[in-house]
């Protein structure tokens, strides 16, 4: 007689969320405004890349493979003829460390999907569509296609924007005069306002502002971002009150 084994051994008992064509379409359409801003941001990167003497193909491949504005711009800082791999990889890990946190937050939702769908959605994940999708799910629509659709439209905006920017690159001599370097800050400030949920976020926010400003005196922006995210999470964790 063979003893029946219980297949469920881990804490992971997740029901597969719906993943429909309708969800993908919905995400694709909902993220349109974001896609336009990403297109613009991609153009800025294209301009910077062309001024760093990257070819159009190199810029496009970088945008498609790395797909992270802040990381790519940071990698371009001090870019010279022969790129040094280790410092650049470390830079990308630092600038993109926040995605580790985004992915962690997605586990309860995407955990029930099969691997190709889940990891394709993660490949296309951006700051904007992540925030948008988390909001959508909280509002009651748990169709995981939303994340893929919104990610896809942003990915298209980013890569197409990179190409356009690269073609225009030579026309823009001093991009900082057009506020290019202020782009990430401006969008972050807008998203920050949208994410702030009033009183319960007040003390974590104040604590994090303090930590961010102090840390910025000693550390590069990538570390400051990671520290700030962790600080908010830790304060949120400690201050959490279970509502019975």
């Amino acid at each position, binding site marked *: 007689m063979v003893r029946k084994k219980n297949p469920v051994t881990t*804490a992971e008992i997740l029901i597969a969320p719906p993943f429909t064509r309708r969800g993908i379409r919905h995400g694709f359409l909902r993220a349109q405004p974001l896609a336009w801003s990403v297109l*613009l941001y991609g153009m800025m990167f294209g301009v910077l890349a062309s001024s760093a003497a990257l*070819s159009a*193909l*190199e810029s496009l*491949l*970088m945008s498609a*493979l*790395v*797909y992270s504005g802040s990381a790519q711009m940071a990698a371009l800082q001090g870019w010279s003829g*022969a*790129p040094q*791999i280790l410092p*650049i*990889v470390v830079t*990308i*890990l630092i600038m*993109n460390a*926040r*995605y*580790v*946190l985004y*992915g*962690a*937050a*997605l*586990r*309860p939702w995407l*955990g029930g999907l099969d691997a190709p769908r889940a990891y394709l959605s*993660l*490949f296309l994940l951006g700051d904007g569509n992540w925030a948008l999708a*988390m909001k959508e799910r909280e509002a009651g629509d748990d169709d995981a296609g939303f994340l893929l659709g919104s990610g896809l439209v942003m990915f298209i905006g980013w890569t197409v924007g990179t190409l356009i920017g690269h073609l225009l690159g030579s026309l823009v001599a001093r991009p*900082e*005069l057009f*506020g290019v370097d*202020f*782009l990430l800050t*401006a969008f*972050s*400030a*807008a998203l920050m*306002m*949208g*994410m702030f949920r009033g009183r319960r976020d007040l003390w*974590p*926010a104040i604590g*994090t502002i303090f930590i*961010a*400003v102090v*840390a*910025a005196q000693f550390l590069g*922006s990538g570390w400051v*971002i990671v520290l*700030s*995210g*962790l600080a*908010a*999470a830790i304060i*949120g*964790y400690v201050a959490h009150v279970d509502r019975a």
Partner: protein
Amino acid sequence: MSIAPDFLLALLAMGLASFACRAGGFFLMRFVTVTPRLEAALRILPLGVMIGIVAPVAALGKIPELIGLGLVLLLMKVTGNDFLAALSGIVAVAIIRQLL
């Protein structure tokens, strides 16, 4: 259109590092139980990330950036449209920098 071989190598390493970040947190959480307390922490985390980007810039106290940020926050409060708010802030910074 051209591409250098050592550039391609660097690019592959960059792409791999980037995807490792995107997939890593999701993968690792497979082995963690998400309690309500942990979920509360995961929820407030994005706000912290945004603060980590904005606060250091504000703390530098440069006039164009401060006005730009003020405009973004104001328009966000009034319109709730993040694209409009951010774009206005960028335009404001660009204009003020030309003037100063």
